[in-house]
Every structure is written in structure tokens, then in C-alpha cells.
């Protein structure tokens, strides 16, 4: 299987404190990879190294390489804006802009100048909303504020917003952790659906969720990658004792 992202020997520091230790990992194209592990294990930090979102933290530093499609994204002269367009992100807490539903989804299209005409823009917004399984619920209220939507709808709006700029990879940082079970189920179904077109990396503290949606699972503890295997194997016959202890709930 083709690797979309190859991470080798990645170390991450907040100032002098090391948060990630020598991580090497391959993320296959058009698959779902889940990162699991106890709170503070570095899984979110690791996720955020993949679109350089940690750049916003002044004291953060990274060594090692992250190759996406064979390009090292930490190489000097990397176009971070272009990188983030290619590697989209959905956050733990839904964070729509204080704009209308339409303008939220259109935002990324507009700033990146993707559309060719007004009609094209509208078509792209519709497609993104449809792909995020939200179109039917919002098609009659596109011009109303995004804050009028429910929590689950807001999160799917954020997914639509990310899809609209046509990324190749989507990073999801505990996308359903603030949602009720029904909204969570919708997001999970959506994630599986999106695999057809996108490479997806999802951080979750919910092991059942990882088991349900992902093809491969990586288990992190204290900033180290403990085990990385196909999800099926991980949850039935893990290689590491630590993984088994975590999955069976002996700690965490």
C-alpha cells in the first residue's frame, strides 16, 4: 500500500521539555489511521505536527522528517499555507466562524481562489455540505448564522468547511468528543464514508471509536509510539503488553 505520509525519527519539544520521542510511522493513502492513548500522551501534539499547526506555539521545535507525497514539510522554504490547504483539520470543539452557514463553507474556497464563478462557488459549497452529510438539513437556511446549528451539525459544518478546499489529508482531533452518541455516530459514519477520497488521521480517546472506524491504530504513551498495527490485530492480539493493558482498561 502506498504511503501518503511518512514520519521518521520525529522528536518534538515544548521549549526544553520533550513531548514526542523518535516517532516513525507510515500513514497509507485513503485509509483511516487512529491515534489512541491516555491524556497527555502526545497524540494531539503529533497530529498537529502533520500540518504544522504547532508553528503557532513560539517555543515549539521539531526534529526528524515528515514526508507528505515525498516532500519534507519541515524543509526550509516550505509553503505552510499550501501545506494546510492540502492537509485539512477538524478540531475537538466545533469552531464555525461568526458567519452564515454558506459563508463558513465558502471561506476556504474564497481565500484560496478555488472557484471560477459565483455559480461554481455555490456548487462547491453544496458538494462540500453534501459530502459532510449536512446539505439536506441546512439547504433552506444557508444564509442564517452557523451558531444556530446544533453541536453535531456545527461539527459537520466544520468538516464541510475543511472538505471545501479539496484537501488530500484530513486530520481530526477528537472530532466527536463533545457530542452526544447519536451525533457521534453520524460523524463516525461520515468519517468511514470520506475514506474513499481522503486519507484520514483521527485522534480519539474513545477506543471503541478507533475500533469501529479505523484501518490502522497507533497507540501512544508518554510521548512514545508503543505499537502501530492494523486495527483488527491491535484490538484482538496486540504485540505489546502495554497496549493490551490499555485496551482492556487496566489503566488509562
Amino acid at each position: 500500500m502506498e504511503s501518503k505520509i511518512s514520519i521518521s525519527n520525529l522528536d518534538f519539544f515544548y521549549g526544553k521539555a520533550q513531548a514526542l520521542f523518535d516517532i516513525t510511522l507510515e500513514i497509507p493513502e485513503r485509509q483511516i489511521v487512529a491515534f489512541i492513548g491516555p491524556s497527555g500522551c502526545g497524540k494531539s501534539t503529533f497530529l498537529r505536527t502533520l500540518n504544522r499547526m504547532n508553528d503557532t506555539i513560539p517555543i515549539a521545535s521539531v526534529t526528524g522528517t515528515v514526508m507528505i507525497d515525498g516532500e519534507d514539510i519541515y524543509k526550509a522554504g516550505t509553503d505552510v499555507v499550501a501545506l494546510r490547504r492540502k492537509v485539512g483539520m477538524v478540531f475537538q470543539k466545533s469552531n464555525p466562524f461568526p458567519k452564515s452557514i454558506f459563508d463558513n463553507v465558502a471561506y476556504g474556497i474564497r481565500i484560496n481562489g478555488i472557484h471560477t464563478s459565483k455559480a461554481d462557488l455555490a456548487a462547491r459549497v453544496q458538494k462540500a455540505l453534501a459530502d459532510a452529510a449536512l446539505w439536506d438539513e441546512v439547504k433552506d437556511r444557508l444564509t442564517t448564522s452557523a451558531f444556530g446549528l446544533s453541536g453535531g451539525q456545527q461539527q459537520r459544518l466544520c468538516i464541510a468547511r475543511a472538505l471545501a478546499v479539496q484537501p488530500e489529508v484530513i486530520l481530526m482531533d477528537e472530532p466527536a468528543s463533545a457530542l452526544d452518541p447519536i451525533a457521534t455516530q453520524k460523524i463516525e459514519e461520515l468519517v468511514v464514508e470520506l475514506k474513499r477520497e481522503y486519507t484520514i488521521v483521527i485522534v480519539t480517546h474513545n477506543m471503541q471509536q478507533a475500533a469501529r472506524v479505523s484501518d490502522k491504530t497507533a497507540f501512544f504513551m508518554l510521548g512514545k509510539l508503543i505499537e502501530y498495527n492494523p486495527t483488527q490485530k491491535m484490538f484482538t492480539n496486540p504485540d505489546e503488553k502495554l497496549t493490551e493493558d490499555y485496551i482492556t482498561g487496566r489503566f488509562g
Partner: protein
Amino acid sequence: MAQTGAIGDKIFRTILLLAAASILLIVVAIFYMMVQNSLPTLERFGIGFLTGSEWRPAQEEFGALPFIYGTLVSSLIALVLAVPISLGIAIFLVEQAPIKIARPIAFMVELLAAIPSVVYGLWGIFVLAPFIRNHLGVFLQDYLGWLPFFQGRLTGIGMLTAGIILALMITPIITAVVRDVLEAVPTTQREAALALGATKWETTTIVLGNAASGIAGAVVLGLGRAIGETMAVTMVIGNSPQISASLFEPANTIASLLAANFAEATDRIYLSALIEIGLVLFLVTFVVNALAKLLIMSVGGNSSSSKHV
């Protein structure tokens, strides 16, 4: 049977109620006192007091229009100059500057707010006025002299000087409020924009969109200060009750008129005129604030995230 602490809570609530009521009482009392004391001119001139443009106390002629005009125009100049600068400083401090640079700059801005107004006035007389007379004014007349705003004799004392001094004086307060408002915008908004491939500038526009109502509030606060500022304006505006399109001409504001003339207003009708114009200032401030509140509400309706999150 009385519940534990019921009496204490009752007293506590009464004290709070009194505190809240005192504000209303003070406003009403001031308003009543001013109306009462300006009755002589209110009865004698009626609406003509507001529309009249002659102010000759010796002849018992009182037209407040030049002072209303001067107050509004000088405040407007101050806003036009101060708002972009304040926004620039605040955005720089919150969105761009590393903390090592942001701290000292923020400290300097706060220091600027602590300078007494009379010192601004002195600086206006001895530094700004000559600068406008010899440099800025000359420059403006050379290049924009065809505009009515920049015609006439250059003395260095006048509307423009007052506007610039006011701009300096309201910059710290607008900057400080805008900075607080920007800092209150959740980081997740910035990250959402960045994750979509937004540049720093585009991310900043998202932050500003979130902060719009707060920024409007900051501007209003600045306007309120500018309208009421007295000492520094008196020192540089020229204290001449005239309405002129030229910003180089001397003018006068309500606050400045009151400060300069109260001591010598001995006869009843003159005093009444001054109190009535004070009442006008009171009402102008009131209307400006009400308008601004409406503005904030209209912005807040669809763009304030703080309400919904």
C-alpha cells in the same frame, strides 16, 4: 420560622439595590439640576439656542451651534486618526509581536494614558502647533490646498491641532480595549482559519470579525472621551466661536467653552446659557452612546460569538 441568614440576605439585597439605584438617581438629579438652572435661556431662546451661530454674551446673544460643531468635528478628526492607529497597535500586540516586544509596547501605551491632560495641552502649544504652522500645514496646503478644509491662514492653533491632540489622548484607551477584545477571541478561531490555508492577514480578518462588536465599543469609548475632553482642547483650539470649513481656523468646543468662561459668568442669563450648553453636551454624549449601542447590537446579532459559544 425564619430561615438561617434570611435577614442577612435581605439586608445584603437592599444594600445592592440602593447602590444600583444611586446611579439612576445621580443621572436624574444632574439632568434636573441642569434643566432647572437653564430655564431662563430655555424660555427666552427656545430652539434658537441650538441653531444660532452668534455667541456674544455682552449683547446677551447666545447661539450654541459653533460649539456643537466644534465638539463634533474635533472628535471626528480624533477618531479618524486614532482608530486606525489603535487597531494597528492592538493587532500587532495580540497577533504578531513576540511577548518580549509586546510587553514594553503595551506598557508604553498605558503610560500614555496616564499623562495629565494639561501636559498634552502644553505639548500641543509648544510642539504640535509650531509643527503644524511650519511643516504639516504647509505640506497640506501645498498638496491638498484646493480642498476647503486646508485653506486659510496657518497659525498652528485651531481645529486640526485640537483633533490631533485628542487623537493622541484617546489612542491608549481604544488600544487597550481593542487589545482585550482581541485576546478574548478563542484561539480555535485562528486555528480554524489557519487550517484552511489562511494567511496571517486572512486569519486576522477572521479575528476582527469575531471582535467587531467589542471594537465598536472601544471606538465609542474613545469618542466619549474626545467629546468630553476639556483642558488640552482649550489650550490649542483657539477658543473662537465660529464655524469654518477650514481645519486651520480656530474653533471652540462645549467643554472648552465651559471651562474657560464659568468663572466670569456673573449675570444670570449668561450662567443659564452656559448651563444649557452643558445640558447639550450631556445630551449629545447620551445620543452618541445610544446610537453606538444600537450599532453594537446590530453587529452583535450575527457576528458576536461570545453570545453563542
